């Protein structure tokens, strides 16, 4: 137990900050994922074949390729790509991007593909009459989307989004390969210096279980809130 004490002797405080880092990366990644799904969901639903193709390519590639490979692409290719863009603007110094940003972007793109699928499914399962009624009543497009489609869509999407959140939370463990100090990385460091991997990896597993358990409870509340009246 003294291994987990706070202060210089134990790993308690380090693991605590690592847990906060995992939460921060997961939330950032989830938000980046939402940004991506806001772009790609309309593309997947559009009647235009070309837009459709773009949307489908994104979700198919991301969902068919291992997360680790995507992370390696970002980790090794990220600063190269930024430097290439910078060189167009006449900046030739070496640029290193922060592991947090690369990590959350990589996980964000992955989680974006999953949430795109969730939103697409949710919108498609809304009754067609709702869309037609809005058109008949002559609502402006953004009002009809925000006030009619969005609330119904969220109700259908939240249970599946909670799955996406779980996947995202677990995927953040893979960022440890890039050296960002989150739960997995911190356990690796602690296991290396105390030669007690069994204890620290089991503790990491418990931390992940706690995180998934607590977030499930919170999401269940949201679910109740959004399904009022059904």
């Amino acid at each position: 137990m003294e291994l987990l004490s706070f202060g210089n002797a134990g790993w308690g405080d380090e693991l605590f900050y690592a847990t906060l880092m995992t939460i921060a990366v997961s939330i950032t990644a989830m938000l980046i994922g939402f940004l991506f799904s806001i772009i790609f969901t309309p593309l997947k639903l559009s009647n235009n074949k070309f837009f459709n193709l773009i949307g489908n390519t994104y979700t198919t590639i991301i969902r068919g390729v291992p997360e680790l490979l995507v992370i390696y692409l970002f980790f090794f290719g990220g600063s190269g790509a930024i430097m290439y863009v910078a060189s167009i603007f006449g900046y030739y110094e070496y640029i290193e991007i922060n592991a947090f940003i690369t990590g959350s972007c990589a996980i964000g793109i992955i989680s974006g593909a999953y949430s795109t699928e969730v939103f697409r499914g949710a919108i498609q399962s809304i009754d067609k009459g709702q869309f037609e009624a809005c058109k008949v009543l002559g609502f402006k497009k953004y009002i009809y989307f925000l006030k009619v489609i969005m609330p119904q869509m969220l109700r259908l999407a939240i249970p599946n989004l909670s799955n996406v959140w779980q996947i995202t939370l677990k995927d953040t463990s893979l960022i440890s390969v890039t050296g960002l100090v989150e739960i997995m990385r911190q356990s690796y460091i602690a296991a290396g210096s105390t030669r007690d991997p069994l204890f620290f990896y089991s503790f990491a597993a418990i931390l992940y279980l706690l995180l998934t358990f607590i977030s499930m409870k919170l999401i269940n509340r949201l679910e109740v809130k959004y399904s009022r009246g059904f």
Partner: protein
Amino acid sequence: MDISLMLTSLPKLLGAAVVTLKLLSLSLFFGIFIGLLFAILRLSKNPFINKFAYGYSYLFRGTPLLVQIFIIYFGLGQVEYFRSTFLWVVFKEPYWCAIIAFALNTGAYTSEILRSAFQTIKPGIIEAGKSLGISNKIIFYKIQIPVAIRQSLPAYGNEIILMMKGTSLASTVTLMDLTGVAKYIISTTFKPIEVFIVAGGIYLFMTFLIHNIIKYLEKKYSFQ
């Protein structure tokens, strides 16, 4: 775009894809038995057995696969007693550690898929069996299991694809699978995009194959 690098790395990556497929098929093979066992335990009326099976699937579905591999590969080797048993022959190899971790992980997901399939079997099918005087055991093996397997095919297809992506984690315990070799080539040549296209293409091709095989099986074993 470095086309020649893509061409020279293709055979190496294809060789590594064989390792990925081996890992996948072995872990699915063991995983399906683990899944079936725990699905049956979940359906048991005994609350202790039921809770145990639920705990197993909760534990393996609630933690990242990476933690599971690390506990099995780095963690178990630390126990002195464990190293003196015959099991150590298996657990000292990263290859078998990875397969054990994958099998336990996919077993947890498979047990959930099969459990829900068992629960959605129409009671009429079982009643028909009973009224024909077939024994409970035969109803279970010859009616419930085949129907459950057919019903869980679409979900199991997704699980196979998820597991194929999961095998990429074998590269973290020194195994040279498709992702491991891809990372090695990237870190020696610093051409991430080219290697990603080739390795990702191979993964996508495998996903495509799995998807179509499952679709074919679904059609072949459909009830209509």
